[in-house]
């Protein structure tokens, strides 16, 4: 029954997020006594080998942590390094960064919606299986994903580990004419995004409520993507978000190591918390443009959505927003005078946080006077979400067992769904559970 001993589970990753994992569930007389998410992605030691690198290098190096959200790593790294050096990147350079980030949101969230998550709701093993019966739906998803990649490729050079981002801005900025075909593609993508939202809103959603605290960046006048202040919304607190400065991130979000997983697990002020689409929508949903809010309402969402199964609907709302926002940014784009601002290194500590598709991604760097990194610290979304994911697992399995016993196969499927709800990076998400059930 148990695979312990047959697999090496305590191998972890500095990437901490995507990759291979397992689940351990203990059931004692129909009661779930333990639900552990085991991530055994091999360690890659990024924080260690960032030491000794130049201040210009973390964006390219840390993007290699995740092929699914490299822009998020590049953006958080740039912000943190620029924070050390006392530089603010604003105006059209900031707008271009946000546009690039919109591309990643469209690509990455659509990948999760269509290729990883939707097959669960429709009873298929994969999008390829799904396409045999519903080819038009899958083709719409691929087209939408391709539009996100087109943004990444134009601004970044390529969609995975883009080459055009640098501390201070870009190596090269596009002309208005270069952005024009992109706008045409995004206008078609808007139809696909609207249709996607209608499509996922029609799925069947089991009842569930995640009672974790929520954490997302919040900006004063826009749905936070590339900038904002960490903001927490406690469960049961009503609508009273509390913000704290990004430099205090590690005072609030504290990582600890658990013996069964090589990913570190983080808690917010000692409590279980969740970051990502559900948290962002709860904290910044009121800042979405009217048309997107209306579409969300038509899809059955109101102010706060705490049902993790419905996260697919919230992701579809965010894709629609990212398409709209990309079109707005292209429409108001004026090429900046220079592709990057100068960033002269100086000694100090800097902090940067941005909203990766999966949630708040925090970087901290310490530089010496020559601009050499002497310390690095990275807190990705999935390490923050593990506690909430485990709690979801416990609750969802317990609810299921209240209606009678279930086979291992059924529980496995249920647990996999519960985990994919939170999109814990890709190779985890698609098929990753090696379920072990101990029954006393």
């Amino acid at each position, binding site marked *: 029954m148990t695979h312990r001993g047959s697999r090496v589970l305590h*191998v972890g990753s500095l990437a901490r997020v995507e990759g291979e994992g397992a689940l351990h569930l203990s059931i004692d007389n129909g009661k779930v006594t333990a639900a552990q998410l085991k991530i055994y992605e091999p360690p890659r*030691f990024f924080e260690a080998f960032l030491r000794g690198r130049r201040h210009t290098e973390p964006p390219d190096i840390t993007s290699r942590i995740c092929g699914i959200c490299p822009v998020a790593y590049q953006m958080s790294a740039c912000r943190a390094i620029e924070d050390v050096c006392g530089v603010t990147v604003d105006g059209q350079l900031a707008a271009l960064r946000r546009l690039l980030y919109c591309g990643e949101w469209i690509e990455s969230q659509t990948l999760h919606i269509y290729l990883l998550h939707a097959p669960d709701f429709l009873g298929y093993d994969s*999008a390829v299986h799904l396409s045999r019966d519903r080819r038009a739906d899958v083709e719409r998803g691929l087209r939408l994903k391709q539009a996100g990649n087109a943004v990444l490729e134009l601004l970044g050079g390529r969609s995975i580990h883009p080459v*055009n981002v640098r501390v201070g801005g*870009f*190596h090269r900025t596009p002309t208005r004419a270069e952005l024009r075909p992109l706008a045409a593609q995004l206008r078609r993508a808007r139809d696909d995004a609207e249709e996607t939202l209608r499509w996922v809103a029609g799925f069947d959603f089991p009842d569930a409520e995640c009672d974790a605290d929520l954490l997302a960046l919040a900006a004063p006048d826009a749905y936070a993507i590339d900038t904002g202040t960490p903001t927490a919304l406690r469960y049961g607190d009503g609508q009273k978000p509390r913000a704290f400065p990004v430099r205090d991130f590690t005072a609030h979000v504290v990582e600890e190591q658990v013996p069964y997983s090589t990913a570190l697990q983080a808690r917010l002020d000692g409590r279980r918390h969740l970051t990502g689409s559900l948290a962002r929508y709860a904290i910044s949903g009121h800042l979405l443009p009217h048309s997107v809010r209306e579409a969300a309402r038509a899809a059955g969402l109101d102010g706060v959505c705490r049902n993790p199964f419905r996260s697919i609907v919230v992701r579809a709302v965010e894709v629609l927003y990212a398409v709209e926002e990309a079109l707005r940014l292209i429409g108001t784009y004026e090429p900046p005078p220079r592709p990057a601002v100068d960033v002269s290194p100086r000694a100090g500590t800097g902090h940067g946080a941005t909203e990766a598709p999966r949630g708040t991604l925090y970087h901290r760097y310490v530089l010496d006077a020559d601009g050499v990194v002497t310390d690095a610290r990275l807190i990705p979304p999935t390490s923050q979400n593990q506690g909430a994911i485990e709690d979801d697992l416990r609750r969802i399995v317990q609810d299921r067992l209240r209606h009678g016993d279930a086979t291992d196969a059924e529980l496995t499927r249920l647990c996999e769904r519960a985990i994919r709800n939170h999109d814990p990076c890709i190779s985890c998400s698609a098929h990753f559970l090696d379920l072990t059930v101990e029954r006393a």
Partner: protein
Amino acid sequence: MAEPPVRRRPRLGVFKFASCDGCQLTLLDCEDELLPLAAEIEIAHFVEASSDVQPGPYDLSLVEGSVSTPEHLERIRRIRAESRRLVTIGACATAGGVQALRNFADVAEFRATVYAKPDYIETLATSTPISAHVPVDFELRGCPIDRGQLIEVITAFLADRRPDIPDHSVCFACKRRGTTCLPVAHGIPCLGPVTHAGCGALCPAYGRGCYGCFGPSGSANMPAMIPLLRSDGMSDEDVLRFLHTFNVAKFAAIEPEREDP
């Protein structure tokens, strides 16, 4: 009339070792080709994309990531035994990846930097390419790999021919693209002359010197390259960092002995 015999579709396996997932994601980034490809081949093992995981044997296995844990050693041998053709994809699988920087450091110290209780973490002292452990039929370079090259590799192996992937340098691609030479025109340090082509000479097209993410080309002349980087303003430390990143083990292997002053 008799039914035509059902053609057995070739079976594809996709496997992951220590990596960022970006190279296998490249397959899902083939938005135009994915469904037509899935009609020609059976995607038998691709955990990133499907929970329908079939046992081997596989006609073509794509392997991403480097060997970096004790469990990996056993697993890659098993995959090799089940694969008619095995192609490694990306800098991790072909050169050990960025995580091979550990090969030049003290892993115990690395582990302690990251984990409060290092005893829980099992890892090898080195991160090594797949070809250090099993025979490999083809190595597709890049951090990440190029989408067009991936399609070429898959179609070539399914047709039992060698992939048409030249091993010349990025300079060739730059000339073909009509990009002005950055070191010549602007004195920008560029690894293009010694870096394997395949990306389409992206960085120079964006005004940035090539940083070698595809690893060394077929005839990389490092003794000529390094003085060129120095004359473009790089310090010895900068040159070392430039070469020791995403394909650290590959560039290090062909670097000349450092001259005594």
